């Protein structure tokens, strides 16, 4: 193996092992920043020693042992200044002596440790952006550079965000217990929000030319799947995973050969990934089995499943989708849910019915700059042969979107309205 080969293998080991490593260390040292530092120390040691000595049989255990030694040294050095550190140091040493099998020590508390880390990195005391960055870093195993590239911000910005969030967590003395029962259910929405945010960033980029950044979708899916195993009794977790699996199943069908976006009803369903659809429907079944009253993610997953189950757009069960949006509007009312409900109503009962609802949303301040409002309105007007008005709406929508490919699509639809409303050529 060449040096580069070994380095790439070490990267791979790090990606697989680092979340468990940091999670275990966080439990031991009760500080996320320190935990990451010790984990990084272990990585540096691996980069120095493994190229010559080879990758150990159990790389996770090697990293854990090395990180723990660093932690013990650190606390020993700091005992002069801090009683608490002295205690921690002694505690660690004691554990070191009584648990010589590091592999077992790693596995013992892994589920709890990781759950703890998830809830810490998604703590509501942090800003959403900070939560996203910290989660991708600590649990996703992404480098600062990778996170920066995915979110199109400078690396320094992400680095700062992570540093500041660790400081906030230390400063606010966030408790390190794993939330359970009622407390877990209360804290869960902030975790789900972070994961879905990451997924959406990958699924529909709002700036830049790429319509999708698939890697982020995979990261979000992986985080969701991890959470589903850690908190299997929570239906909304399974709902979120189901929603993401089903949405991701359309990845290959969503863009055309020149990168142009293709709307759901025009997609080739042969390109929908059946493995992901099967997994999504299975997750949805798990969610539905856990409780009769579906939450927002389960409802959205049920809506996505309506599309996923049908072979052709014509077979879509629109009345069911209308009913599901009705339920969603009850528990999480929002103009965006209303807009989606309007689209579903237009499909179930005709464009005029849908337009009524959309017109009612015209005054919504929060939708002022939302390009999908005029886009939907344009679509309905076009179906009602009101081409002149439709064109104006598509042009307005095009001016509001920051995604270049979407803008192109909207302008093309405006153009088709102009053509449709043009007087026929004289024979």
């Amino acid at each position, binding site marked *: 193996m060449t040096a580069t080969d070994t380095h790439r293998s070490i990267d791979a080991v790090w990606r697989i092992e680092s979340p468990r490593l940091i999670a275990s260390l966080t439990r031991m040292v009760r500080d996320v920043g320190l935990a990451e530092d010790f984990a990084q120390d272990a990585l540096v040691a691996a980069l120095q020693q493994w190229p010559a000595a080879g990758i150990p049989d159990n790389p996770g255990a090697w990293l854990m042992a090395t990180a723990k030694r660093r932690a013990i040294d650190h606390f020993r050095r700091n005992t002069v200044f801090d009683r608490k550190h002295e205690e921690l140091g002694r505690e660690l040493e004691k554990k070191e002596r009584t648990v010589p099998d590091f592999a077992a020590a790693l596995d013992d508390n892994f*589920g709890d440790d990781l759950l703890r880390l998830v809830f810490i990195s998604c703590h509501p005391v942090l800003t959403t952006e900070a939560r996203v960055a910290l989660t991708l870093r600590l649990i996703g195993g992404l480098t600062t550079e990778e996170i920066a590239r995915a979110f199109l911000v400078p690396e320094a910005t992400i680095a700062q965000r992570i540093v500041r969030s660790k400081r906030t967590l230390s400063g606010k003395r966030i408790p390190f217990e794993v939330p359970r029962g009622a407390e877990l259910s209360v804290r869960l929405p902030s975790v789900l929000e972070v994961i879905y945010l990451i997924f959406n960033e990958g699924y529909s980029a709002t700036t830049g030319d790429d319509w999708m950044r698939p890697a982020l979708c995979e990261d979000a899916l992986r985080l969701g799947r991890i959470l589903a195993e850690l908190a299997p009794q929570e239906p909304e977790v399974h709902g979120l995973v189901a929603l993401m699996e089903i949405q991701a199943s359309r990845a290959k069908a969503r863009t055309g050969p020149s990168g142009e976006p293709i709307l759901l009803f025009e997609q080739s369903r042969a390109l929908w990934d059946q493995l992901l659809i099967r997994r999504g429907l299975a997750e949805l079944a798990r969610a539905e089995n856990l409780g009769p009253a579906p939450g927002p993610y389960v409802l959205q997953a049920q809506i996505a499943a309506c599309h996923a189950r049908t072979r052709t757009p014509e077979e879509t069960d629109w009345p069911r989708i209308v009913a599901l949006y009705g339920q969603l509007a009850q528990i999480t009312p929002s103009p965006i849910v209303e807009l989606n409900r309007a689209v579903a109503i237009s499909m179930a009962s005709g464009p005029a019915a849908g337009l009524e609802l959309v017109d009612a949303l015209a005054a919504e301040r929060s939708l002022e700059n939302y390009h999908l409002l005029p886009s939907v309105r344009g679509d309905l007007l076009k179906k009602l042969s009101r081409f002149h008005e439709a064109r104006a709406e598509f042009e307005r929508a095009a001016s509001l979107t920051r995604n270049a490919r979407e803008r192109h699509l909207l302008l093309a639809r405006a153009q088709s309205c102009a053509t449709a409303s043009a007087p026929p050529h004289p024979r």
Partner: protein
Amino acid sequence: MRYMMIVKHAEKQELPPKALMDAIDKMGQDATKAGTMLGGGGLAPTALGARVRLSGGKVTATDGPFTEAKEVIGGYAQFEFKSKEDAVQSAVQFMELHKKHWPGWEGETEVRQMYGPGEFPPTA
């Protein structure tokens, strides 16, 4: 990126040691918990299977066992990994389990990237 791991070995008559089966189970559970494993399974002995071959313009079905074969497929798994290196590393750890729990066992895990819907091999 989606990968398939295909485990191949000489078809043995004895069952693998329980310690190995337990360790493989656990590795599978861990990978599922880590969100990387999408599915997979072990394959029953070739005696219970069949082969259907197209050759010389003829399709022939033959029942197992296939004792003349040097290697048979023992099992497979599908994963979602960030890179080929991650996939290889996972396969290495899988093989290390065999080394530890079934001394003398030899075999190979082939690591292959899977095509998504609509994907085709690059043309030359």
